């Protein structure tokens, strides 16, 4: 099979049908790609062919996102712990012994939990706007922080605007110098999937549970200090959610961390996948 050909697969793991993209040599070093909100493994469509010449690339969709089974809220408690449990089940099912992981946005708190539980499996970490420090959180989090402080129905409903089509598009275009480089199918697909019955409520549950990620930052940072994983931070410096100080902060716990910025927004791969992909390839060579 052509190494650039991507397979679109589903496996039963952690109790759910988990959809994932897979490409590259099956005996190559594994790179696990963990996506963020409100997207899916779709966000890696341009990066995967860059890595799959040499690496066995695996990109699952988290429950509630993309094409992974998304049970109703009464059957599945949408927390980052539970998203992690499903991805842990996925890693076990695929029998992944060692892997580098790319974490973005929601993929980061899932990835940090995986790393803490499986430090022996992690060969290295690429964080693309995947935050672990309070100084990385922008004012864009204020409406969500308000909900954390007072989990009232009113504060919950106020967050619905985060899932509106205009917001989804804005997440892709904010901070992008040339809007002509953002593929419309990105935010279109995300919105189509957000519009599925019940999905917005799932997202509101996850907004609420995100507080536990911030609570977990000290524990994740302790993991960095103790296990000293190789880390590359690749960061869109105009991300309205995760600020450049969040990228710089990795160096505090990991003095050898490499931190690179790109003049773009949250979804940095949309405009800079070639530059970021090349920097990742350089980093992966050193692991």
């Amino acid at each position, binding site marked *: 099979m052509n190494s650039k050909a991507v397979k679109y697969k589903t496996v039963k793991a952690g109790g759910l049908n988990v959809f994932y993209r897979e490409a590259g040599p099956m005996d190559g070093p594994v790179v696990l790609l963990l996506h963020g909100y409100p997207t899916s493994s779709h966000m890696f469509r341009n990066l995967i062919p860059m890595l799959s010449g040499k690496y066995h690339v695996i990109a699952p969709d988290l429950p509630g996102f993309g094409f992974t089974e998304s049970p109703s809220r009464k059957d599945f408690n949408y927390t980052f712990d539970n998203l992690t449990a499903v991805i842990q089940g996925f890693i076990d099912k695929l029998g992944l012994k060692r892997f580098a992981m790319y974490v973005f946005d929601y993929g980061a708190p899932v990835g940090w939990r995986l790393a803490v539980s499986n430090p022996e499996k992690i060969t290295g970490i690429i964080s693309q706007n995947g935050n672990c420090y309070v100084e990385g959180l922008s004012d864009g989090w204020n409406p969500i922080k308000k909900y954390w402080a007072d989990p009232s129905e009113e504060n919950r409903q106020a967050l619905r605007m985060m899932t509106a089509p205009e917001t989804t598009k804005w997440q892709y275009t904010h901070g992008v110098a040339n809007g002509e480089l953002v*593929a419309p*199918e990105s935010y279109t697909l995300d919105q189509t999937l957000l519009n599925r019955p019940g999905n917005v409520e799932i997202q509101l549950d996850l907004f609420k549970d995100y507080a536990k990620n911030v609570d977990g930052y000290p524990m994740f940072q302790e993991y960095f200090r103790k296990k000293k994983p190789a880390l590359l931070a690749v960061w869109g410096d105009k991300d309205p959610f995760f600020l450049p100080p969040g990228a710089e902060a990795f160096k505090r716990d990991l003095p050898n961390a490499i931190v690179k910025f790109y003049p773009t927004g949250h979804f940095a791969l949309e405009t800079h996948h070639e530059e970021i992909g090349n920097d990742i390839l350089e980093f992966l060579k050193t692991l």
Partner: protein
Amino acid sequence: MEKSSVAYKTINIDGVNIFYREAGSRSKPAIVLLNGVPNSSSAFQQLMIQLKDEFYLVAPDFPGFGNSDTPDKSVYEYTFNNISLSVEKFIDKLALSRPAVYALGYGGPIAFRIAIRRPTMFSAWILQNSNAYEEGLGPAMKDAAPYLMDRNPETEKLVRPLLSLEGIKLFFLHGAADEGRINPDGYMNALHYLSRPGQESIQLDLLQNYASNIAEYPKWQAFLKTYQPRILLVWGENDVFFPLSAAQAIKKDVPSAVLHSYKTSHLALEEYGTEIGEEIIHFLNNK
């Protein structure tokens, strides 16, 4: 740095904003890529990335399709003839000089209509699952024949399902060698665009107007016989709309045409994009 990416642009043609994808350098030979249902220019996304170092590629969405404007039926007539006029003006406005054309599905009738008016417009033809011969009409087109001949509420029932997810999957998956190689993002996004308010009426108008293409087939055949254009035929041979017999009919009238077929669906690029891209490079670079 960003020059190597695909850009997503808009240009105004007679008051209609035409969205198009653009890749590669204007100094390279141009290819204009044309497709209609069910997924417009997004059908060409990966191919454009593959070919962008060698060619200048532009792929418009037709009026009413994808990210182009959808003018009201009272101001824009949704016929193949009218769309061909819009696309001809689009090519002129971009000042493409003797581009090659890649025509898929509805793209063929658009390209043939332009060629009848301007026989030397296209320097070379890449035809993929697009038709100009009675014997090229596959079972799905035969099923739609009563609707093409006589539109009424009864015959509409025959074709309406083509706009549903199941109908869209006919284009993507039916006849595929391995459905696991077909990206589900494609049909989810196609469903989004075809589900927009007003779409059903426009798409049913245009499908019915396909009868006008069948009436024009003899003219297109005469063009092919007379001008003997350079043609590459790349074909998903299990297509239920325009199967391999459509390609064989063209080759009968243009014996120099090069034919490559693939065991896949109408949207052959989904499964064999890399292979088709390599054939295109070989074909266009070996004059």
